């Protein structure tokens, strides 16, 4: 199989991973005020762990295998929930304290920007790769 855009599988995998990271960040932001999850506990912040996977290149009869990026697992942040005094809240304990998620919205926004920039960088790689291919096809044109 011809591979007109070589190495694009790597970039596509990275885009997939960054997409997952963005999804997880959006989940964190959406649940920043969830005090009552399915298990009755406040929502716990989730973190994406990336790993370097050895992937068989598609149709790799010439270039063998390449190391690509993929999401290894999505883990919970170990930090404890933040206790806030809010006696009117139905989830408040006997002392009027409510356990709110361990989410700092500023941290999430910074992560969001980082993930979005990483996505953008991979898009730039694809754009460059395509422009290189098209310019190469134009060799010898006047």
């Amino acid at each position, binding site marked *: 199989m011809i591979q007109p855009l070589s190495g694009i599988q790597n970039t596509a995998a990275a885009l997939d991973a960054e997409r997952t990271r963005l999804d997880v960040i959006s989940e964190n932001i959406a649940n920043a005020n969830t005090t009552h999850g399915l298990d009755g506990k406040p929502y716990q912040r989730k973190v994406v762990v990336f790993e370097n996977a050895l992937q068989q290149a598609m149709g790799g009869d010439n270039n063998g295998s390449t190391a690509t990026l993929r999401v290894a697992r999505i883990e919970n942040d170990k930090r404890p929930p933040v206790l806030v005094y809010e006696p009117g809240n139905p989830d408040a304990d006997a002392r009027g304290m409510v356990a709110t998620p361990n989410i700092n919205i500023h941290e999430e926004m910074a992560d969001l920007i980082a993930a979005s920039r990483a996505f953008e960088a991979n898009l730039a790689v694809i754009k460059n790769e*395509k422009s290189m291919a098209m310019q190469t096809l134009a060799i010898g044109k006047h």
Partner: protein
Amino acid sequence: MSPLSAIPQMMSSYGATPGADVMRPKALPTPGIDAPTPLDQPGEVAPGQPAGDSFGSVLGRLVSDVNTKQNAAMQAVDGLQSGQGVPLHQAVIAMEEANVSFQLMVEVRNKLLDSYQEMMRMQI
């Protein structure tokens, strides 16, 4: 000296007559680039070469590869539009790959046509 008198020389430089090796320009050593192999005669297979490696079958494989890429791109777009969970970037990448492969095929076709027309214009 007639203009046609150069033709035997040209032909011999392509190895058409025996003993033409003296006329043949020395091939420059180009690392990484194989020396051009003569095209197979139709219906004749060079010894030691698999039968499916004629120029026609190479071209046919290119066309079918491009077709496969186009089909993959169409499937990705279908999957995206019907909500089967195909990510947007994968559909777009599949389309771009199909596009570049198609452009490559078109360039090969243009070159072939150019060389054919050049042949047809040749004065004999």
